[in-house]
């Protein structure tokens, strides 16, 4: 019997799912035994632990990591290419090129997405109606959203119109909505200081100035929305369940897709959050078992389990196309359907920046968004930011 040690993070979401996955897998593969490591608190802590354990030589065989984090492992040669296992025709197994791109780097497939989320709008319909709007013709442009948010904000005491976190992933999402890209294809230059990037950054300022966006921390906002004092909140689709629980019977949490701002919608992409699965083991025998496991959890059956348990969007085309897997789930979960459709349509990589400063610069992006929200000139600030990033990342 082969034993596979599996690492994952975020037990609130994943703990039961992982047990179900392991059980289902072992039923199919009785020769493999899955051992789950104690989960890490979050994706950043998870990847920290993987790096440490690799240095210490105690790394697990397979790991779920944040979709924007596996590059850190790749950078240190800790994970194995999957191309040989995938075979000639991955698409037939449900791995579309868009989905594969999430784990692709320099012509090699290092990771496969297991679950996906993108930025969506959470809306409080009660507030929308009080402000004179309606859910039927909910705005689909940023201008419309800002206008509505301003109306909600005007409702008065303690009611806020809109909120979005000042954060790398959110910024990339807005950027994607405008059809911009953070970097060029060979990762030798920063490209978000173009029109799209400036427009995306300007949104922060407009939210603040025109719609009175408060300067909440993420936990502030996550408290305000379910409490019913925040009209529109841009957040990851993965928060849906918690928001629904938190709002209870007070109001009906409603999900709306992100507005599309690009002139050419084919340029639109949304960075995908969620997790990828990677193979760490170098032992050929284990690698085969690991692959069996990976293909199971990224295959339709595994994906069904994941979607039903976590609320994440699936990362396999087959489950989406074939109603036998998740049809009844979506009938009950309109919000999930909206979010998952957005993933299916626009999923794109969550860019991580190359080199040793790759993680550090994401905090600089966040800091720049804070500046812009608080009144800095968006164009100048974005240009300055791009320049700083080029320096930090050694692109010049």
């Amino acid at each position, binding site marked *: 019997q082969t034993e596979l040690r599996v690492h994952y993070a975020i037990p609130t979401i994943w703990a039961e799912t992982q047990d179900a996955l392991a059980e289902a897998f072992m039923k199919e593969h009785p020769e493999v035994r899955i051992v789950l490591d104690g989960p890490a608190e979050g994706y*950043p802590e998870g990847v*920290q632990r993987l*790096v*440490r354990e*690799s*240095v210490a030589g105690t790394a697990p065989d397979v790991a779920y990591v944040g979709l924007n984090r596996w590059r*850190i492992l790749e*950078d*240190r*040669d*800790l994970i194995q290419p999957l191309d040989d296992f995938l075979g000639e025709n991955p698409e037939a197994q449900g791995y579309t090129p868009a989905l594969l791109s999430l784990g692709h780097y320099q012509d090699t497939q290092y990771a496969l997405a297991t679950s996906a989320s993108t930025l969506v709008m959470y809306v409080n319909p009660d507030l929308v109606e009080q402000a004179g709007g309606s859910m039927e013709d909910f705005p689909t442009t940023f201008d419309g959203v800002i206008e509505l948010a301003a109306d909600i904000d005007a409702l008065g005491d*303690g009611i*806020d119109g809109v909120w979005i976190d*000042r954060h790398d992933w959110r910024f990339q999402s807005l950027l994607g909505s405008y059809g911009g890209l953070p970097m060029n294809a060979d990762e030798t230059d920063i490209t978000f200081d173009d029109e799209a990037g400036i427009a995306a950054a300007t949104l922060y300022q407009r939210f603040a100035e025109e719609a009175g966006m*408060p*300067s*909440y*921390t993420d*936990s*502030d906002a996550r*408290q*305000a929305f379910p*409490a019913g*004092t925040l009209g529109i909140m841009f957040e990851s689709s993965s928060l849906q369940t918690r928001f629904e629980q938190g709002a209870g019977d007070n109001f009906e949490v409603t999900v709306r897709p992100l507005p599309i701002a690009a002139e050419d919608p084919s340029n639109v992409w949304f960075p995908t959050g969620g997790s990828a699965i990677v193979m760490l083991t170098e032992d050929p025998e284990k690698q085969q078992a690991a692959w069996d496991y990976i293909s199971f959890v990224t295959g339709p059956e595994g994906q069904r389990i994941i979607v039903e348990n976590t609320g994440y969007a699936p990362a396999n085309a087959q489950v989406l196309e074939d109603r036998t897997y998740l049809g009844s789930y979506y009938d009950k979960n309109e919000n999930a359907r909206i979010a998952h459709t957005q993933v299916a349509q626009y999923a794109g990589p969550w860019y991580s920046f190359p080199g*040793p*400063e790759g*993680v*550090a610069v994401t*905090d600089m992006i*966040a*800091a*720049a968004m*804070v*500046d812009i929200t*608080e009144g800095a000139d968006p164009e100048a600030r974005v240009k300055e930011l791009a320049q700083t990033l080029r320096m930090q990342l050694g692109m010049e």
Partner: protein
Amino acid sequence: MPVLTRSQRETLTDVWLTGPATLALLIFIFLPITIVTILSFSDYQFGAGDLSWVGWENYITLFTSAIGQRAIVNTLIYVAIVIPFSVVFALLVAIGLHRMLDWAPALSRILRTVYFLPVAATLVAMAVAWQMLLHPNLGLVNKVLSSLGGAPQNWLSDRGLVLYTLAAIGVWQSVGYNMVLFLAGLSAIPNDLYEAAEVDGAGGTWARFWTVTWPMLGPTTLFVLVVTATNAFRVFETVATLTRGGPAFASETLVYALYREGFVYFKAGYASAITVIFFAILLTLTLAQMRLVERRVHYR
């Protein structure tokens, strides 16, 4: 006759008594420190296979980068708030509770436990409670503030305010710790000194405090200052759980910076340099503090 001379046997005894602890100190504290100091001159990336020596570059970066400077300045501001406030509050609370012991011992003991609670609390959960209390819109703090006619504040998301909020929470955490130390110091003051003061005409509350209490608490105060300072300089947990250094590095502190650089960014070399600087600051200040205060506190 024993094989070893008496001196040799005495030395063996000393080694047997102090050896284990000293060895443990060397292995678990000084060896790591040495490694860290050496690494601070390299560009080592945690997990990477190779490294190269970069001389003082990491130090130069720390002192020239805006974020590095921010971390140093923030730490100093934080410490400058937490030390005086937590020491003074703790002293006042301790004196109050000590007096209360005379006429309401039970209440005094209960309050003592209450003030000690923050020391015993699990910060993971406390952070959530604080976040809710300090919520700009829904939090009790702002609601009370506005009902008193004040303007609500963004305690944790206002760049100008967040450091002071953290400092206030830091005071909240250390008042109990210091109070316990002061209470112990107070109970060691001989009562006849108060009586002498009374007979000498220093009978009022303030006169008693300045003639007896404060001077007699000298050694305790020194101890409290050293402990508070080392704890305040190491501020990490509240930053990590409440603000993660944000917004826009406004609450970045040295230990959080070294944590972030080392653990999140994996820049072990740079993190080591922060460590060395941190250690140097701490060592200097503590020694200075001891030097300055020690002589005035041990009345010899």
